[in-house]
């Protein structure tokens, strides 16, 4: 077997296109996970058991079942009840929903880390519940959560190759198409894997930068 550079040169633009799709899925999926995670965390703290218990159950269920099967569910089952999504959108929703169950735990820890005196002070100042959350608790809880959130950005990116199963055009899907014509899997699979690996390292480097910049609480 020989390593064919010309073959790699031919497929590289296609693979890079795939990587761009993968990065789009990562970024939008992660934004979704950050927003939904906060919603889950707040709902789980609700004093009404009718809200907190079912939300808690759903979150635990999503977290302990495989993303891949959830993707199949979103992409193949939801159209039957009239919710049609393109493969990429289904992938983004799946990633966002799955990782929201992780980020909600991060927010929970961040909220628990706010000293009780802050709650008491908000009560003493007669702030409304909404004001307490938006002006006192969350501005302290969210920066605390950033370092751990960064870890989940990398984790989410590493799950993007699973979108191959619902035909999103990420690098492995591209590699499969290339292989179907060339019958030379070694270079294609290796390059797709390497692209993911390099991108993961770059992302984790930026994650560390963001953490250093925003990860401290300023009072």
């Amino acid at each position, binding site marked *: 077997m020989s390593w064919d550079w010309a073959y790699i040169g031919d497929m590289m633009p296609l693979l890079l296109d795939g990587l761009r799709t993968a990065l789009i899925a990562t970024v939008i999926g992660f934004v979704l996970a950050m927003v939904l995670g906060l919603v889950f965390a707040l709902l789980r703290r609700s004093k009404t058991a009718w809200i907190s218990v079912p939300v808690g159950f759903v979150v635990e269920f999503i977290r*302990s*079942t495989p993303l891949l*099967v959830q993707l*199949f569910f979103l992409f*193949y089952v939801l159209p039957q009840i009239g919710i049609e999504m393109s493969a990429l959108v289904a992938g983004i929703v799946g990633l966002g929903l799955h990782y929201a169950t992780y980020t909600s735990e991060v927010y929970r820890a961040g909220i628990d880390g706010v000293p009780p005196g802050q709650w008491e002070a908000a009560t003493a100042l007669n702030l409304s519940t909404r004001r307490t959350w938006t002006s006192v608790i969350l501005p302290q809880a969210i920066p605390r959560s950033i370092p751990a959130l960064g870890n989940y950005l990398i984790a989410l990116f590493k799950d993007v*190759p699973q979108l191959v199963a619902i035909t999103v055009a990420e690098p492995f899907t591209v590699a499969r198409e290339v292989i179907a014509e060339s019958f030379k*899997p*070694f270079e294609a699979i290796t390059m797709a894997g390497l692209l993911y*690996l390099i991108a993961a390292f770059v992302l984790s480097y930026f994650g560390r930068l963001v953490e250093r910049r925003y990860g401290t609480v300023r009072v």
Partner: protein
Amino acid sequence: MSGAQIGLLAFGAWQTLLLTLGGAALGLLFGFLGGLARVSDVKILRAIGFVYVEFFRGAAVLVLAFWFVYALPMLGWQLEPLFAGMLALGLNIGAYAAEVVRGAIQSVPSSQYEAALALNFTTGQRMRRVVVPQAVVAMIPPFSNNIIELLKASAVVAVVSISELTFNGQLIWSGNGRAASVFGGLLIMYGIMAVVFTILMRLLERRAALSVGRQPDPGMWKRMRRRAEVSA
């Protein structure tokens, strides 16, 4: 559902269990080797541990599985698919486990090291008889998270045609076209397996805590009973 379909699901669940347990065994091995290497006094071992952890935490299970199943045969090594899956899972989870092992060993109070030194234990004795038995107790709770991650990751190897639960579910679906019941059923089966693994790991955790003379956290039942007594 026909008998053949139930058979497929049962076989798939069995393969998933094998993948999870085999992956866990390999992961435990790699985790201990990697974690011990990372706290070693020998610089080159520390470097190897570091590279192992950084590389395999960065490489997704799917990427590894793809590579083992489709690329490695080109180099002349053909792995049994199930074993290729276990290896991909084990290498990946082992990198996370190595960090757990490192953290747990470093969390053993330094007075324990000093006591072992004062008693003239060799390095090997110190690790085997003093440090590791205490560190293991601290490892079990994070390991139980890891094993749930491993169970979930085992579904990923369906993509390289290993006939575990998800793959067989897809087969049934392509036969009968009932996406909702097949994929909903798969989710429930994975959910049940995750609950069983969590309960088993919790029992192990209590066992381990008792074995080094620590009071384990009260279980859910005991907590509920105590609460009932207080309110009565």
